């Protein structure tokens, strides 16, 4: 069956360090992969989208990689801050070819950045 796995354990890091979150998938061939941030009691907020033909994407302190051979995406936050503490979700498109490729979501990884 198709599956998306993210680090199930919460990630605790020290302020200023780089946080690295993992998203692994099996039995998919997604064309797009997205990362979202979710704070308690709120809806997910879009961060980055990366296409299958892109190896890496950056936005300010965020970097995403997409390795279609390993079936893995890594999400990095450099110079992390306590305000980065949240749950981070990855989402992949799946379905038939064409425009109705809906998103399938991982369970998310909880990140805590300690001051």
């Amino acid at each position, binding site marked *: 069956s198709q599956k998306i796995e993210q680090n199930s354990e919460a990630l605790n890091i020290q302020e200023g360090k780089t946080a690295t979150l993992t998203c692994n998938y099996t039995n998919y061939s997604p064309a797009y992969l997205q990362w979202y941030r979710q704070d308690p009691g709120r*809806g997910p907020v879009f961060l980055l*989208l990366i296409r299958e033909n892109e190896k890496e994407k950056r936005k300010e302190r965020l970097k995403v990689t997409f390795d279609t051979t390993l079936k893995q995406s890594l999400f990095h936050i450099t110079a992390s801050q306590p305000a980065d503490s949240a749950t981070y979700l990855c989402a992949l*498109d799946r379905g038939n070819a064409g425009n109705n*490729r*809906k*998103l399938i979501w991982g369970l*998310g990884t909880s990140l805590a950045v300690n001051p």
Partner: protein
Amino acid sequence: DTAVSQTPKYLVTQMGNDKSIKCEQNLGHDTMYWYKQDSKKFLKIMFSYNNKELIINETVPNRFSPKSPDKAHLNLHINSLELGDSAVYFCASSQYPLFNEQFFGPGTRLTVL
């Protein structure tokens, strides 16, 4: 300006009741979604509408009926509520196609007693 809004934010009701959740977006998007996030935080798509047409209908009990009166609104009506319906329901919108970034509402926490 709120991009995607939902009402109500909290809904507490008895088993067997019928309830509705409303969603509106002012982003000019043509696609809207309903998601369910359960207690394990798993986010699962329920329905998607594009230009008022239903394009995704996951295996959701037919007690759940979405309605899109226009592109900016997508409502969810739930009949005969059950304990297992307790969850947070999120509305979202995006430009078509579906793999574009999605904008989520604040969620409606439904508790069925």
